[in-house]
């Protein structure tokens, strides 16, 4: 290395933050019938990068996130995968609890709805202190010092006093910050954030995103960021996964996805950006609504697709390279052809 070369901190080559192959999630109901919700998805999130998972609500994003942590109730959901590893830790097939040792320490989770995500009967500070006491064996007073540091880190004003408040004394945005604090408390290598900014007002949204991005830089975390806000994707993501009806229909780098999408669904999502940031509604650009969960035949997007042909109704397209991205489409929008 010569002195002329700039001293750029290169990311240490690490295992992928998340690597999953062939993940399927099926809901069982009381009648014994089963409903496929997430169908054979595979993807990788790189360490130190933000991977955005986008798609209309109901497409299976939250189920996927929860399954990555092994947190789905096995009485309700049947989760299968060929291979799943989080922070380099391989999960034993068919045993969601095999992921328990890395939860909290190596992977943090920000739940979609912070409303009921904190124990109503325990002081917020104590709920965070638990992490340090149980995982790090700290004394209560040491743990408390860490908690105050965390609450300051997530920019909760008046942290020392707020640590002694109960969840019902916090607003939605403040609860979300507490959840984030808990997720990053032990400097995990991976962060799974499920729509961390929906239900917050716009200024708070921006602050929380900046916060997550800062934390990623600080801890070099790999982040799986679920959102249906494409503005957020532009702002922080490196790579994008597009999910539709329980399948990944397109994936690629953020520039490629945003400038030259190959899947008509992605293209439709992009056109509807302006509404999306406010209400999450995509109906403006894509007619119709997503199919109800369950078995499907052919391309799940075909009924809403402006360019569907007869083959789309019968044959399921598989993900393959088309232009700069991977797309699951029989007739990908080719480079240079702009959908308008």
């Amino acid at each position, binding site marked *: 290395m010569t002195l002329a070369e700039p001293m750029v901190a290169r990311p240490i080559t690490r295992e992928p933050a998340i690597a999953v192959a062939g993940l399927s999630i099926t809901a069982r109901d009381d009648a014994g019938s089963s409903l496929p919700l997430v169908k054979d998805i595979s993807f990788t999130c790189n360490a130190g990068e933000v991977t955005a998972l986008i798609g209309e609500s109901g497409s299976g994003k939250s189920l996927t996130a929860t399954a990555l942590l092994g*947190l789905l109730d096995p*009485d309700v959901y049947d989760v299968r995968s060929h291979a799943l590893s989080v922070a380099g830790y391989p999960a034993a097939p068919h045993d969601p609890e095999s992921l328990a040792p890395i939860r909290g320490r190596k992977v943090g989770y920000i739940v979609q709805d912070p409303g*009921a995500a*904190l124990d109503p009967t*325990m002081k917020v500070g104590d709920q965070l202190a*638990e992490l340090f006491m149980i995982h790090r064996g700290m004394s209560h007073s040491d743990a408390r010092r860490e908690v105050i540091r965390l609450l300051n880190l997530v920019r909760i004003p008046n942290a020392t006093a707020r640590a002694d408040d109960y969840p019902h004394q916090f607003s939605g945005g403040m609860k979300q910050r507490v959840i984030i604090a*808990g997720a990053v408390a032990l400097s995990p290598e991976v962060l799974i954030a499920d729509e961390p900014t929906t239900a917050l007002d716009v200024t708070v949204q921006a602050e929380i995103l900046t916060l997550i991005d800062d934390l990623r830089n600080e801890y070099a975390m790999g982040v799986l960021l679920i959102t249906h806000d494409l503005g957020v994707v532009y702002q922080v993501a490196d790579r994008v996964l597009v999910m539709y009806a329980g399948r990944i229909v397109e994936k690629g780098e953020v520039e490629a996805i945003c400038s030259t999408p190959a899947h008509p669904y992605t293209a439709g999502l992009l056109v509807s950006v302006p509404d999306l940031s406010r209400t999450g509604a995509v109906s403006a650009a894509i007619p119709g609504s997503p199919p109800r969960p369950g078995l499907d035949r052919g391309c799940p997007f075909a009924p809403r697709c402006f360019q569907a042909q007869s083959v789309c109704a019968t044959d399921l397209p598989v993900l393959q390279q088309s232009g700069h991205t991977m797309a699951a489409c029989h007739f990908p929008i080719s480079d240079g052809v702009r959908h308008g």
Partner: protein
Amino acid sequence: MISYVLRRIVIAILTTMAAVTATFIMLRIAPGDPIAVLLGDMASDAEIADARQAYGLDLPIWQQLMVYLGRASTLDFGQSIAQGTSVRELVLSHFPHTLLLAASTMLVVIILALPIGIYTAVRKGQSASHATNAASLVALSLPEFWTGIVMILIFSRMLRWLPSGGAESGWSLIMPTITLALPLIAVNLRLMSTETINVLRAPYITMARARGLPRGSILRRHVIRNALIPVVTVGGIQLGHLLGGAVIVETVFNWPGVGQLLIRSIGIRDYPVVQGCLILMTFSVIVTNMLVDFAYRLIDPRFRRG
């Protein structure tokens, strides 16, 4: 907090007065005449009239009520018609037995129902939990007098292990306690179990798991506390009832508590004593409700306002 306590006490006094008035009027309207019972069939009309006057029973009901409330406010609840002793002394002399029975019952209920309830919730769907559910269903449907009599037959008559009644030794406490506790264990066990199952599904438990807390810590620190909230309410109501005297069980086991005093006094139309017992029952319910309320505030911070 202090204003809250004062408010609760004022409400408690007003509730007691309303209950006293209601029972007072109902007792006077009910058929049966204490003087007739006291003096027997042979008494002359004049004797009866004298006695009525002596006990103030010749006055109109509302006047009797005023006199009664006036005295009650100085904790004077009159004299027993049958025994001539002070109602206050009579009721208070029976209360320790009722208190003892209520306390031992609730203790047994807490020690058994809560851990088993939690256990069946955690073992949901396994045979141990099915067996407990079936057993509690049976316990719930057994009438107290039946359990009591069957226990007397087995443990007193056949095996001669336990005294069949009275309150002479600590052994006498066992069968009444079990008889009272069985259905309460069943109720609280099932409640604790369903509440635990509900709490286990709560998002904050999923989040606790997501933070990697071990199962045991989650159960101890988050699940039990939250699941207890409804159980405390129900347990408080049960304790309130027990403190008012367990009429059937005290009668079956000849346990000298307030319930037995009440039944005996109703039989001989001893109004002042019946009235005294009813006031104690009302008061027990009110006091335990207040205690439940305070317990609630300890467990659930959302109730700590005002």
